[in-house]
């Protein structure tokens, strides 16, 4: 379509199957991450180096993933999904226990977290499954798709890892939404979920999860216990004011009043040190990445690629929203890191792999056109 000028503008990027604006946005976030991790780790250069290595590995993953056409991913979707489900079952049987939950699988030299695989496998599988027939999907297909969403979701929730299970589920549900799920059904589903909430509260949630929700509703209830995190986080954000206390000068973070300052609560560090101006810029950067992802989804021709790109982008938004929402007191604390900024390994690689798929969708569409019309 409009690729002629673009191709002329970025012939090299095109050849490398990379989308310029998206790459620019991602790189900006990664560089910001290094500076913020340096501050949030209490100026620990070792951690910055480790984070840089991770970013490098994640970008390499992105690059490799982008080289393969969407059709390849379409073909292997059921395979990845099946593997993911098997690994999730394996984790429940023989997984490593950490922080009261079984999430890791020890495979000799490496430990893997199958729920991370599922973050990609889920939208791949649902996009593949929905795209088998014309859109919008029929009721039966929707029901089958929901079953495919539910299975891994329950397996992850059982670990227990409520936050990830909801993110994985939403990645699948977003595909169904983009595929044209009728509004009437959406309204019905929302009402069903609302009805389901008490059941969730009473039977399915663990004590620590309920505690999180209670604390979220009124953090001052337990200011030294579980409410401590959110109170300190709000103090950090608020005391940043408009222009912030300055890089490395956030007292809440540097003096460790802020918990999990380099992982889940890193947004509070940014707010404290760079103020409202800083966080507005950060949100602008995220918005840019998200809009770019959705534009790619709009432009690409293949419906599988469209659904996948849109779903992955929207999931990315959910990460950002949930993390910022939880540290600023809008949402309960569910342990979701700030994507591409928080210090940490697996999720960075998974996210970049997702963006690799989006870039693949952005740069391989000419083949698809030929495939469709010739």
């Amino acid at each position, binding site marked *: 379509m409009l690729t002629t000028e673009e191709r002329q503008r970025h012939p090299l990027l095109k050849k490398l199957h990379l989308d310029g604006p998206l790459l620019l946005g991602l790189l900006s976030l990664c560089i910001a991450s290094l500076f913020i991790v340096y501050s949030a780790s209490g100026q620990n250069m070792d951690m910055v180096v480790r984070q840089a290595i991770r970013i490098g590995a994640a970008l390499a993953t992105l690059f490799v993933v982008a080289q393969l056409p969407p059709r390849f991913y379409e073909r292997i979707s059921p395979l990845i999904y099946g593997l993911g489900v098997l690994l999730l079952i394996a984790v429940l049987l023989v997984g490593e226990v950490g922080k009261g939950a079984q999430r890791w699988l020890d495979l000799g030299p490496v430990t893997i977290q199958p729920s991370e695989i599922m973050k990609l496998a889920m939208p791949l599988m649902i996009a593949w499954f929905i795209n*088998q*027939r*014309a*859109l*919008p999907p029929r009721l039966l297909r929707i029901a089958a798709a929901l079953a495919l969403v539910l299975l891994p979701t329950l397996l992850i929730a059982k670990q227990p890892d409520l936050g990830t299970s909801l993110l994985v589920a939403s990645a699948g549900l977003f595909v169904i*939404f*983009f*595929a*044209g799920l009728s509004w009437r059904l959406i309204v019905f589903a929302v009402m069903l979920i609302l009805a389901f909430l008490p059941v969730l509260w009473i039977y399915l949630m663990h004590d620590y999860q309920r505690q999180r929700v209670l604390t979220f509703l009124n953090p001052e209830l337990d200011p030294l216990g579980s409410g401590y995190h959110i109170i*300190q986080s*709000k*103090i*950090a*954000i*608020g*005391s*940043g*004011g*408009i222009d912030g206390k300055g890089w490395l000068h956030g*007292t*809440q973070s540097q*003096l*460790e*009043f802020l918990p999990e300052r380099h992982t889940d609560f890193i947004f509070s560090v940014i*707010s404290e040190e760079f*103020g*409202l101006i800083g*966080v*507005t810029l950060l*949100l602008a950067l*995220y*918005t840019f990445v*998200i*809009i770019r992802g*959705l534009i790619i*989804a*709009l432009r690409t*021709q293949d*419906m599988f690629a*469209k*659904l996948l790109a*849109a779903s992955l982008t*929207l999931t990315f*938004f959910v990460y950002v*929203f949930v993390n*910022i*929402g939880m540290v*600023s*007191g*809008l949402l309960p604390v569910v342990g979701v890191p700030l994507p591409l900024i928080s210090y940490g390994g697996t999720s960075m690689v998974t996210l970049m792999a997702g963006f690799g798929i989006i870039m693949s969708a952005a740069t391989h569409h000419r083949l698809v056109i030929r495939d*469709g019309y010739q």
Partner: protein
Amino acid sequence: MRTRTPIRDHDAESSLFAGRVIFAIVVIIGLFAVILGNLYHLQVDEYNDLQTRSNDNRIKLVPIAPNRGLIYDRNGTLLAENLPVYSLEVIPEEVTDLEQQVARIANLLEIPPEAIEDFEQNVKTQRRFNHVTVLDDMNEQQIARFAAKQHKFPGFSIEARLVRHYPFDDLLTHVVGYVAKINRRDVQRLDEEERLPNYAASRTIGKLGIEKYYEEQLHGEVGYRSVEVNNRGRVVRTLNTEPPTPGSDIVLELDIELQRKATEILGENRGSIILMDAQTGGILAMASTPSYNPNWFVSGISVDRYRSLLNSRHSPLLNRATQGGYPPASTIKPQLGLLGLQSGEITPTTRIWDPGWFEIKGVDRRYRDWLAWGHGWVNVSKAIRESCDTFYYDLALKLGVDQISDFMHQFGFGEKTGIDIAEEIPAIMPNSGWKRARYGQPWYAGETLSVGIGQSYWTATPMQLAAATGVMANNGEFVIPRLLRGYGTLDDMQVVEPKYNQPVQVDKQSYWQVVHDAMVEVTSSIHGTAHSAFRHAPYTSAGKTGTAQVVNLGEDEEYVAEEVAEKYRDNAMYIGYAPAESPEVVIAVAIENVVGGGGSIAAPAARRLLDTWHKRYHPEQYEEVESAND
């Protein structure tokens, strides 16, 4: 390859998809707007509140104790000082093999195992980045040994703090007092007086004597260091320091040499000697024996030691100078004689016949004079000079106890003198109303006779006797005794002005002269009761002896000091002033349970102290004597 629906309307599917994407974009922007709105609320609307809470988190005030003011005597001798005490401290966090290192140090410094056990207990309760004391109060040898090997013990350090020390040990306990650990009662009192914040860093507080009375001036004002702390309370850096204001130094009227002499004179006896400046009321010496070492209390006295002080039959804790209620005995005869003259009951020439005893009309009991064969014809001057009891029995009976009591209150009897220490009793100046209130009984005439010779229920502290004698020396002017000379040091002292009570007034100045002359004769006349004690004194002096019975003897019982139990022996009293013509000092002596009396025990004691005083304060007279001899 793939089986698909035969015809798929790609345009319709794309536009359906596009609609969903646009909806998603709207939702995304909407939710981001909610987030931004919330951030705006926190960072702008609630900025002030959250900024304050952020500072409350990180800024803590660490109080700094002020240095306590020093106490000097009138010649600049240091009576209470602050000495550094060294302790070995460790920050557990900075030591990798704490147990082994402590064992090595225990070996090096010969620390007893109990102290190490205490240390191990403390380590468990303290945060790992806080100082924990390994060994308190290190001696010089231990300091030297550790200093030589300090490099082998990273994380260990010697810390110094100032601790109150009294170089004169038990010599000044009843004057200077002491400081000791702040206890719960102190905290409560400080809190009520809203002075508690000032003690945030202080470990000790004045508990006795000058240390207690001038606590506010000596203590100083607490300082503060505002520090930034992290979430575990570890100090990260100091933001600001407001230094403490040290306590004011103070100078006492005391002369340590005279104090030493007074204590030496008392020796093993229980008693008190006071030497007071007749004009300013300044206390040059205030001895009370037995005493004890105030340094025991500074760092905490052992229960056993305290109990032995408390239960000792010699009552070392009692400050006899201001808390010892002694029957004043004949030492009050000058004042009573003055009252006789003032009241008109007698004139200077009124005389009575003393056969050695006195009888109240209609009462079949003889009140004996100390001189069994009597003094013969006696007027008031002779009655003072020779301490005639019979004359005073007669006079007291004429005056009545209530008139006596009223007049004696003007001299400060039955009242606290107001000297600047808290340990003082008003003692007892009885009258008929007092007896009725206290015992529910009427006053008997026989008791009035006893009051006439300073006995019965009448008690007085040596400090009261000194103050009342000062009134005699100054013809009625009543200067209040005081230990404090001024604030600051000798070079830069803010001198405190003397304070006065209402003066004692009599109708004729000649009354003072009559009594004064009689008191001079006590020391100078061949018949004076203190004549032998003051023979050849190089200065003139006025005085009055007193010998107080501790037990009442029956009418015909003989008192033989050597035969009665020590605690039933007489008390020897003496009051006086010198030089007689222009009094500079007043002296009061009370020595308990002695074989002898005012004339043989107390007067010589007074003489020895006055001699020492005279040599120190009038050295020029001795030079003249020496040069005259040459």
